[in-house]
């Protein structure tokens, strides 16, 4: 498999895995939790390195997963005191965990290959070189990992579609019908954490956060129903993957950054031109609506219409 294809496939799988979850984060107003989780896992990675001297996938994913859960629970606990709002609770917890990670890196692991750049900026460019022997063929280990996560997320969506839908749009209704919104929310957050942590290890934090947030926000501007929202979000993820890789090669710049940029361009286009919610389309529609009132030439037409309507009623 060529390197180009590996990178594009990795990013596309990431876009699928994240695109399945992102819409629910957007609808539940928990978007920034993904950013928090992506930063909060740093101490987990460092801890695994200090304890086992390893950067192998599985221990790192476990260590990072532990801290992702600590982060989510910590935010929830602080918010539950009622003394601190959810946004401030998020902003208290994840920088603290990140700070622990930074201290760990600089004190115990300096000089080894665990620099902040590669964990934060992500090195999706290196995915083709980190390989596993699978079924007799050598393949980039990011592919089976992300494929597994994608399948897992897909299974969760299929199995819990009704529950997710009910608890996202109307928590009270879902509770009355015996679906615990808290439980569904916890399952969703665990899925987000697992996705973020797995992907983080192979492509870097910023790309995960981008893929969780931006395609879903873009799709939110283009769709009204839930199923199309998820589908469009996945499609935007793939567009960012392919377009981002192309432009990164053309510009000779960071692949993760370029993919994020393409996703953001998609969002900007949707924001301006979405048929229903775009600000330009809305301005044009508004202009059309008020123009008959403003221009006298069109006024008789609408009046005539009104008059004929009333005649019909009376006749």
């Amino acid at each position, binding site marked *: 498999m060529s390197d180009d294809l590996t990178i594009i496939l990795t990013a596309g799988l990431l876009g699928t895995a994240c695109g399945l979850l992102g819409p629910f984060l957007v609808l539940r107003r928990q978007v920034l939790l993904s950013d928090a989780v992506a930063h909060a896992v740093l101490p987990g990675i460092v801890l695994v390195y200090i304890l086992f001297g390893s950067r192998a996938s599985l221990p790192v994913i476990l260590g990072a997963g532990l801290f992702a859960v600590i982060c989510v629970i910590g935010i929830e606990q602080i918010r539950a005191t009622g*003394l601190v*709002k959810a946004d401030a609770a998020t902003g208290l917890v994840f*920088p603290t965990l990140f*700070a622990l990670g930074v201290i760990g890196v600089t004190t115990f692991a300096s000089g080894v290959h665990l620099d902040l750049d590669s964990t934060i900026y992500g090195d999706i460019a290196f995915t083709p070189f980190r390989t596993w022997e699978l079924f007799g063929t050598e393949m980039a280990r990011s592919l089976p990992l992300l494929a597994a996560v994608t399948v897992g997320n897909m299974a969760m969506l299929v199995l819990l579609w009704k529950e997710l839908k009910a608890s996202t749009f109307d928590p009270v209704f879902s509770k009355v019908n015996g679906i615990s919104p808290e439980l569904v929310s916890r399952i969703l957050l665990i899925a987000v954490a697992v996705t973020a942590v797995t992907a983080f290890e192979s492509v870097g934090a910023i790309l995960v956060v981008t893929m969780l*947030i931006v395609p879903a926000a873009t799709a*939110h501007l283009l769709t009204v129903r839930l199923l199309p929202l998820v589908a469009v979000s996945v499609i935007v993820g793939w567009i960012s993957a392919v377009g981002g890789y192309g432009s990164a090669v053309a510009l000779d710049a960071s692949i993760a950054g370029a993919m994020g940029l393409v996703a953001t361009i998609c969002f900007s286009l949707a924001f301006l031109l979405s048929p229903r919610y775009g600000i330009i389309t809305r301005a044009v529609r508004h202009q059309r609506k008020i123009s008959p009132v403003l221009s006298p030439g069109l006024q008789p037409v609408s009046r005539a219409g009104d008059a004929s309507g009333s005649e019909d009623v009376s006749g």
Partner: protein
Amino acid sequence: MDRLIELIPLSYTDSVVLIGAVILGVAAGVLGAFAVLRQRSLVGDALSHAALPGVCVAFIATGAKDAVTLAVGAAVVGVIAAGLILVIERTGRIRPDAAIGVVLTGFFSLGIVMLTFLGNFNNSSQAGLDTYLFGQAAGLLVSDLTVMGLLCAASLGLVAVAFRPLKVALFDLSFAGSVGLPVRLLELAMTAMLVIAIVIGVRTVGAILMVAMLIVPTVTARQLTSRLSTLLVVAGIAGAVVGSAGSLISTGAGIPTGPVIVLVGFVVAMSAILLAPGRGVVWKAHRVTSERRRALNEGVLIDLETALQSGPPPTVGQLASLSGRPPAGLRRALRNLDRAGVLRRDGDRIALSATGTAAVQTLLDRRELWSAWLENGWRIELPDAGEPDPRDLRASLGDDLTDELLAFSRGGPGE
């Protein structure tokens, strides 16, 4: 500035770091309050990530790497990012959190692309731009301190001058608009102040840790006070304390300053959340348990009185079956009542002592007063709109009103 540094009994670089951390703490504390109280804490996250493309643009435009040029670049791009967040969330479809997320990732991606793109041309000269992300307190210069100090003083002055309109806009934007205040301008001013705080701090603690610096002082101060003016002062002080303590610990232990400051800040904020008088978690838990214990004791006392009225002094078992309370709770209450000296033990039978009889009497009086209030409270004219304290109606109503209330209920149902 040099004289100030000489006053501090530390090495030159450590003093510079200490002063920088204090300025950062004060600025982030006071200016961050305007974001945290509007529930926009994480705007700071987006804006400090937007500093990365900001410094890149500044570097591309001027080729200079001094603090002022880069700070101006970060500030300009920060204001643009803040404006975009406002525009996106104002259109309604995209909620504030998603707007923050999109702007954050978009600007950060742009920054990374610019950084790597720059790296292709001249590998060495752009080096150091990314210290903006992780912060490097040790790299602070005296000239940086002067810039930071001036910015901090200017923005604190702005807060002092525009305190009243800012306060109105902070708590009730539509009211501010209705009394003719320039709402857009005030919103922009609050965001611009956030940008200034970030520009001051991001060099010292880095983009991600800066988020915590904006939040910690306000969260701490909010637990201690409910007035905005006091809150701003307390937040400023808290920021300065966190900054100085963090930088002293870090220079003492030889670990990076930014993370230590954030850890100290987290500890301070959590202690405030747990221990704040009247509001903290521990305080509230204590109040709830003591209220519960009081309610249980009083309930058991009334049960005992009822049993005594209808027959001979009951045993513990009889009292339990009579009151229908769980036996463990009943025994606990009886132990408490024994300790208070209101019970008289007669073998295994329980009766009331002299103090006990008096205590039951006040309790019954209070209950009668409470039902009188529920039934006839609407007839008496309260001096103010506040509800009286249900635990002690007589004290909060005053003797005259209490007697009036009792007269109503003893006079039978009203006409």
